[in-house]
């Protein structure tokens, strides 16, 4: 499940809702990305999505992760629009019977979200605004998952 939100969201409530009633799960991994920035500024960054396309791309990615890692469930909540410093940007949740798969799937989903999901990010810094593109580290992170496993 993927949800794009234009207002802040409650990561703890999302974690609890995702974990509730799971008597066969065992492992829930999560990643929470927070907006870094000067707390005196109204926005640390601004995220743009392509409504409809962004959700369908991420929904397909979640299906890939569920199949690849044998997950029971996965969820992505992603903020769009202007985001104040300290606010949650993204929350990825994965559930599986064993912790290794839950961790790896969460890591995989974040790497894809960082460099291949349809978002465009503008950072608001002291010296103005700039569009952010994936870093070299983001690109090498994502390549870990492309390597043939055979």
């Amino acid at each position: 499940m993927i949800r794009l939100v234009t207002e802040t969201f409650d990561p703890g409530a999302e974690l609890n809702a995702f974990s509730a009633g799971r008597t066969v799960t065992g492992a829930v991994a999560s990643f929470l990305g927070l907006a870094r920035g000067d707390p005196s500024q109204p926005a640390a960054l601004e995220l743009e999505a392509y409504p409809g396309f962004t959700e369908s791309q991420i929904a397909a990615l979640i299906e890939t992760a569920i199949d690849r890692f044998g997950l029971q469930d996965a969820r992505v909540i992603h903020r769009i629009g202007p985001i104040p410093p300290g606010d949650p940007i993204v929350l990825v949740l994965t559930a599986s019977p064993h912790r290794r798969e839950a961790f790896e799937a969460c890591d995989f989903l974040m790497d894809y979200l960082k460099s291949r999901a349809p978002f465009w990010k503008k950072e608001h810094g002291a010296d103005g605004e700039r569009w952010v593109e994936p870093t070299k580290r983001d690109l090498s992170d994502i390549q870990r998952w492309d390597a043939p496993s055979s």
Partner: protein
Amino acid sequence: MLLFGRLRDVAGWRERVFEPVPARLSALKAMIRSADPALADALEGPGVQAAVDKVLARGDAALHPGAEVAFLPPMSGG
């Protein structure tokens, strides 16, 4: 036609309707080049992808009347 991220800043607009819709993506790009060479250059930049009707386009996709074409610069979420 929709522009995202820095492409919007290059063009100075986000959404524009082309009538009639060119038959192919390459024809649309040629029209853009004659109107705004800087934007046309940006569309050829590294990592820029096109989507037609919210599906990523491979190669010189055909366009139908009413097609929604979007140009997507390199993506960065999270």
